[in-house]
């Protein structure tokens, strides 16, 4: 899967951007030239300069350092939400195909009801319930993205479970567990990978939205969304201000979506939208023409 993705230009670009942002998140805080929480009162709302590559904000804090510090939090939170969603979605999705009608019905209805809940409102409600922290908010988001994983996994599992080769396997005495291991997993994994990449992008948007609204993180903790919010307040003095975190959010989310697309193209065996067809493919199709 990985090799197939890296063979595509979209895959290479997306993976590079993500790795870059990841590097920022991991190494950034160590490399940050200034303490993101400490402000230099002498230079407030300064433009980009040799000392402050991206300038300073209203409290004299170095924007670059804040950005780097914020990246860790933003990415980690998105990953947290997606991780919870994966766990709560994939496993029930697989089980719903094999554990009989009752479980199937219950899990379907449960997931259906989760889908009806609006993300932000639910997240805010959760923080009211569990405390105002980003982890609580992302836990809530994780619960809400679980149905997406559930459906994707379930659909892939159903398609395989109803196939003739699975029936053939049952006819030689294979157990459901054997079927999952031998026939199901290799086909479900790519779909789940695509969903994960997409959800990471979505998760990042949600984190940014929540922190923009000031939920989950108390200032002066830096986050991309939070910076965006405060920068908007100083639009006149520093008009380019909001663009910096905004652009960073955009390209990261775009990279995740791009990765999802590349993964999908790389693993899509239905051949419906492959643009470059190999010679053998055409030959085989025509053999049945």
């Amino acid at each position, binding site marked *: 899967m990985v090799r197939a993705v890296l063979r595509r230009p979209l895959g290479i670009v997306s993976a590079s951007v993500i790795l870059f942002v990841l590097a920022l998140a991991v190494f950034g805080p160590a490399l940050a030239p200034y303490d993101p929480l400490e402000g230099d009162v002498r230079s407030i709302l300064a433009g980009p300069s040799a000392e402050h590559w991206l300038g300073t904000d209203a409290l004299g804090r170095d924007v670059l350092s804040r950005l780097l510090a914020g990246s860790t939090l933003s990415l980690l939170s998105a990953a947290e939400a997606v991780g919870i969603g994966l766990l709560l979605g994939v496993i029930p999705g697989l089980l719903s195909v094999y554990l009989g009608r009752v479980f199937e019905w219950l899990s379907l209805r449960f997931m259906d009801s989760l889908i009806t809940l609006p993300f932000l409102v639910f997240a805010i409600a959760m923080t009211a319930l569990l405390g105002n922290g980003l982890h609580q908010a992302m836990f809530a988001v994780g619960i809400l993205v679980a149905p997406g994983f559930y459906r994707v996994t379930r659909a892939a599992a159903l398609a395989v479970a109803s196939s003739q080769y699975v029936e053939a396997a049952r006819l030689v005495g294979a157990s459901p567990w054997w079927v999952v291991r031998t026939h199901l997993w290799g086909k479900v994994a790519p779909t789940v990978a695509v969903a994960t990449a997409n959800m990471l992008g979505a998760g990042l948007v949600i984190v940014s939205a929540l922190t923009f609204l000031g939920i989950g993180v108390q200032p002066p903790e830096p986050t991309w969304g939070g910076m965006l919010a405060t920068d908007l307040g100083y639009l006149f003095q520093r008009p380019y201000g909001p663009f910096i975190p905004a652009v960073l959010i955009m390209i990261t989310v775009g990279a995740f979506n791009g990765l999802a697309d590349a993964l999908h193209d790389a693993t899509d065996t239905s051949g419906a939208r492959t643009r470059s067809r190999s010679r053998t493919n*055409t030959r085989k*199709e025509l*053999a049945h023409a």
Partner: protein
Amino acid sequence: MPDTPLLQVTNLTVTTADGSAELVRGVSFDLPRHGTLGIVGESGSGKSLTCRSILGIVPEGCVITTGEIIFDGVDVTALTHKEWLPLRGNRISAVFQDPGSYLNPSIPVGKQLAEALRATSSLGRRAAAARAVELFASMGLHDPEFVYRQYPFELSGGMLQRVLIAIALSGDPDLLIADEATTALDVTVQAEVLDVIADLRASRNLALVLVSHDLAVVAQVCDTIIVMRDGVIVEAGATTDVLGDPQHEYTRLLVDSHATYGIEKYLAGELAGV
């Protein structure tokens, strides 16, 4: 001129787009007006590709490199998409193997036929609906009004195929191409559909190209036959000649296998039943 063949295929060659493989090579045959031609071969022989070339619907990834296909004086290989429109459906028409996939599953079949009729003629809505029912009746479908209202999933394979034949004939074409049209049908239903085709041939003076991997089906319907293998014609001629005295080894293989794996060995001389 009534004597010139309706369809003249000369030296048709179809290759893959990158030119790496020749899928149909130097195929030539004639089809007289009101004639019947059978094309026999297995998958990969190029028989379906030949048909698609005649219809101007060569799949993406293939290209006609040489040869001419002259239909009633016009070389169709040189036609543009626009120039094809008055031809396809009106003068040349086709039915394919899996009837279900050629119909819109969410529209009753009668409406689909009526739509085809209105596209190829100036009939109004009511007139087209009435004509559709008439056509269904002429296909041997009992209770044509009932069939008109049915959705594709509610009809059997044989009935669907007859609906498609009706649609194919709605423009009153001169040539009908049936590509494995009866392959997916039960033997008894196949017999009915072949009867319908034979009747239509007689009543409408239709020319027919019937493609099948089943030699016996072709033997039943066609006066002349060409046998294709790996993109070339290995044998051609009058059906009775070719089947009675096959020259090429592949044809002989097909004919001989009928001796072991055909019901001929049990029916030699006898009529079943009465």
